[in-house]
């Protein structure tokens, strides 16, 4: 196992408990998808791994996080990134006043002083759209380009474990398809292990090997992606398809959600 999360609890500001005993395992070389609705605790789980809870006054109060054999739940983001874990933040957070290429160069921070030209080439080969924009300020890029930029920026760091937080958020379906294709290629060609947080379960389960479903700060279901895809609850709940195969309206799904709780 590359990453093992053992029964962790996370508390913000010492009082707001968000995660209640989450356990999760990520095998090297796989794409593991973490699904769940808004506020389920997906982002918090990623931040617990990457160490980014600290600046938000969050803390792992219980349990342990083991990466490549050593515990990391007490380390700072500076240390964790240098072990090879890079989180791509939710909502695309570019450096708006830096050019696209300067944004990419920030990805070399954990190996300052080493050459990076080859890495730039690699990133541009995955995201050719960025090449035409390299001298443009990132703040003027489109949403799809920004998603490519923040993923490319993370790739510059040679991550062993890449944590992607809702890459499809707010993007057009065609762009989402393209980006998920690239995520799959990065996983296959670079051997990068990926944890993919998504609300778009349909897309995520198409490229993931394994999946977890989270609700209210707990894991409520897990299994190989193909099993989850076929699971009637998941189908109805997250894919918006009822047993009869008809697409359910958003409102129906919502009311269904209110009635039924996992566990």
């Amino acid at each position, binding site marked *: 196992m590359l990453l093992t999360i053992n029964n962790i609890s996370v508390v913000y500001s010492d009082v707001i408990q968000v995660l209640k005993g989450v356990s999760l395992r990520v095998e090297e070389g796989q794409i593991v998808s973490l699904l769940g609705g808004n506020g389920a605790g997906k982002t918090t789980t990623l931040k617990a791994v*990457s160490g*980014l809870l600290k*600046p938000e006054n969050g803390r792992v109060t219980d349990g342990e996080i083991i990466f490549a054999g050593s515990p990391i739940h007490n380390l700072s*983001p*500076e240390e964790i*990134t*240098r072990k090879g874990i*890079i*989180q*791509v*933040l939710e909502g*695309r*957070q*570019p*450096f*708006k*006043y*830096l050019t696209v290429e*300067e*944004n990419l*160069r*920030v*990805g*070399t*921070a*954990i190996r*300052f*002083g080493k050459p990076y030209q080859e890495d730039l080439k690699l990133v541009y080969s995955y995201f050719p759209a960025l090449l035409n924009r390299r001298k443009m*300020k990132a*703040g*003027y890029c489109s949403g799809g380009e*920004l998603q490519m930029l*923040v993923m490319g*920026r*993370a790739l510059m*760091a040679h991550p062993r474990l890449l944590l992607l937080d809702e890459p499809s958020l707010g993007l057009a379906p065609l762009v989402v398809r393209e980006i998920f294709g690239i995520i799959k290629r990065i996983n296959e060609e670079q051997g990068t292990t990926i944890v993919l947080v998504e609300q778009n379960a349909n897309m995520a389960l198409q490229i993931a090997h394994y999946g977890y479903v989270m609700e209210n700060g707990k894991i409520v279901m897990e299994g190989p992606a193909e099993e989850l895809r076929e699971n009637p609850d998941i189908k109805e709940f997250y894919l918006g398809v009822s047993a009869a195969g008809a697409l359910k309206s958003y409102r129906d799904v919502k009311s269904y959600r209110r009635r039924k709780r996992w566990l």
Partner: protein
Amino acid sequence: MDFFLQLLVNGLSIGFLYGLSAMGFVMIFKSSSVLNFAHGELIAFGAYLFLVLCSWAQLSLPLSFLLTLAGCFLLGFAVERVFLRPLIGEPLIFVIMLTVGLAAMFKGSILLVFGGNLHTYPDFLPPWLGLTWGSVSLQPVYTVTLIIGTAFLILFGLFFKFSSQGIYMRSVADNQRAALSLGVHVKRVFALSWAIAALVAGMSGIVLGIINGVNVHDLSGIGLKVFPVVILGGLDSIGGAIIGGIIIGVLEALTGGYISPSLKDVIPYIVLVFILMVKPYGLFGQVEIERV
């Protein structure tokens, strides 16, 4: 007309100096949102360190200059490590109050060691550095200011535009959280901003010491000028700091020459108020890129 040109030239070069020292102030603000009320004391530190090295220890001029810059750099670094770092994450107002305390501490220590009298450097600038066009002349010290200032500006421009460390520093100013997620050593960036700010402040201190003599009250008072300068230029704009500095310097010189030297320190503030009424973010304040 000649009188006007003379004032303009003097104002420009002294303003350039204000701008440079304000640049350091802006750098700290941009990276960590801290307003440094001890900026004037950093300027004074540079001036006194140079005094010690050059006049008392009798070191050669270039060596004293370089050692002073190095000393200021280290001081800035140390101030961040020792005093500011423990306060990271605390409300900003505490941090700003801390810089007020630091200012008092530095000023007190300097007074303790050097007293409040005016010290002067030996007259070391060769007269050929003075330039003359017709009846307008540039004193040697102003020539030096322009040369050193321009050199610093170009050096920093290159550093921030092209070097990796410069790009990391800008990334922290731009989006601290994203910088952290990529492993940028944010605390190191803070320390580096303080070090560079202190270095530039120290450099200004030396030049101001050559122009006006070395006195802790005067020098730390000049530190207060960074406020109109950076507010005018836009708190977050390094280029704005330079131009804001030049505007304030020229206004001061013209006021001193045409109206009254005693109004010199007041008029810039009055102009400042008017400009801010028209452009509340300063002349060059960063316009938020909306599209994201």
